């Protein structure tokens, strides 16, 4: 059961995720998408 998070992805982060999916050219598993989301969070928060 997932813990309920108060963190909501921003429009910019979702756009980055969409762009990544678009460029990948194929559906991705939820786990892969989650990893990418964390990378995007790091990038957009300049924590990388």
């Amino acid at each position, binding site marked *: *059961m*997932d*813990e*309920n*998070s*108060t*963190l*909501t*992805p921003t429009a910019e*982060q*979702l756009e*980055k*995720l*969409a*762009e*990544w*999916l*678009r*460029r*990948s*050219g*194929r*559906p*991705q*598993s*939820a*786990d*892969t*998408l*989650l*990893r*990418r*989301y*964390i*990378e*995007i*969070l*790091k*990038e*957009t*928060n*300049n*924590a*990388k």
Partner: protein
Amino acid sequence: MVQQLNQQTIEFEGTDQEQAVAGEIFNLMRMFGFSYAANRPIRQTLPNLVQYLSEHKFQGIENAEEMTGLVDKALTASPKVFRREEENGIVAFVTTKVGIAAVIPSEQVDHHSFRTRLYADAKPVVTPTPAEQAAQQQASNRAAEANPLQLPTAAPLPLPTAASAARPVAATVAPTTPAKAAPVPTAAPKKPETVAVPAAAKPTTPMRPAEVEVAVEVVEAASVVATPISEPERVAPEPVTAPEAVRELELAPDVVADLSLPTNQLLSEYGSYFRSSLLKGIASDSRFVNFANEWYLEEMTGRYSKGDLRRIREYILEVGGPVTDADILADLYNKRTNEGDYTPTRFALDYRLAKEKKDFEFVGTVDERIWTTAGVPAIGATRHKAAEIGTDYKYLEDPNLVDSNELKGEPGKYTWEHILTFYEYENGVLPYDVSAKALFPKLLQEDQKSVILRFEATQLGVVYNAELRYPSGNRGGWIVGLESFFSDNLVPGAILVVRQTNRTNQFTIEYKQGEEQEARLLFWDERRQKFVFRPIIFACAINKEEALTPDRYSRIDGQKRLEESERKRTDFVLANAFEYAGQKQGDTYYTLLDDLYPIANIERPFSRNYLRSLLTSGNNQFRVDETTPDAFFYKPAGQGRR
């Protein structure tokens, strides 16, 4: 003609075949990066390489899986030439034009080697002070008068190594990491510095990297003498303000993640929070669509017309049973699994069929996506209706009423040993109890009602299609479709062994074999509409404690079934079972749970824990024998024990 200069001999390792593959891929990657600097990493994902080579039938191999194994092995065998990387589950290989495995992370490499290739002594331009400018100007004037104009000799540019037309073009663009957001400079643009230069003495500047652009204003030579060099306005460079790094991110009240931690660590510590956050975003964004565990973009997901959907429905009906998405794609669309766009095409089919809930029902698993449609014959021929069986198994959803796990082994290799009850035998069903829940696949789609299972009877060489009906609402779950396996080979009390295989919906099923024996066992005589003990020869081992033999249950011989309304009342069924199994002591029946269990399981299913619960939960017709474990009394109502 383009000619490659200074081509080196690259030595590959591995078998002859692997060396050939590595050589081919090295040439491909070198062509791909023909315009790169010598030490700039050239990266290609394994799927891209495989796709290219498969399409060109390299070494006669078309099969993508076979090619993947070969390429991965071949490139990994030459670590000096290729560096293997894996990110987000995607394997990539990196090399350079000179055939040395790139070891420097690409982010740290200065990709432009023009500086060193054109002018090795290049230094950054430093803006001189006004006094230095004046001195330089005077020296320059003197030099210009003394020497004629001399241009530095430019080194010849290296020629490209191959035409770009020869690059391999992957049909599917590999996932790439978006470039980091560049810090936005906040300083005002620099004002061009003004230096007074005599027109006749315009200095020539050797080619240098233009780090600072200096505008030169030409003025009359005379004015140089008359006019003192004015102090140019120096704009102090303002520090470039980078966006403030946010390392700590609040995921929930009192839950803060340090984003500087590695992704794996973040996933292990806060994975469920990130997952919740991500799902919140993509579930409410119509661009993202999913089928089961896969996500994609709606705009990139293929569509199916009404005609397509009708053809698919007719195809399933023609087959006469559930079919896989792979069958649909192969038989109706001639789509092969090794085609480059197979994965997105398959996703589109599954996603679109899942949207057509009126016409299609998903009955598959993560590794075999199976579809059925209305009108396909139901699996299994049960004595009771599906709704009745579901209600009978409702108790399985109460953790206090189910028996302990009967599984042996470890996940993925579980073995389930189960003793067949009369109810299971007669209906061809198995309970979806705690053991079955760990053994059989979980539902993949939220609204999924059932899944098709395949049981291979290894002793018979026969495969049985069965259906697992998941619990829903007031109904428990069960597996249906094994009636012919049971009736052809087993008797109630037989010991079944079900084993997992490497596919989530395929199992082996067998029975414990025993000496061939003849015994009189309980059966329902359909013609005479009564229970009878009938001699039967069987070769399966049975658990004698659960066998329905006349020496234990003679009183049921010749009895009729309970009416459906009676069968629905558990206390009535139990009372009936006591009368068949119990030892009569005056107006009271006495029995052990082990004797009650097989006979109670004739009309409807019970676990031992469910029986214990019913016998101790307040119905005062039933009473525990305090002196003997799992022993109970039953005194029929209206006989002084209310």
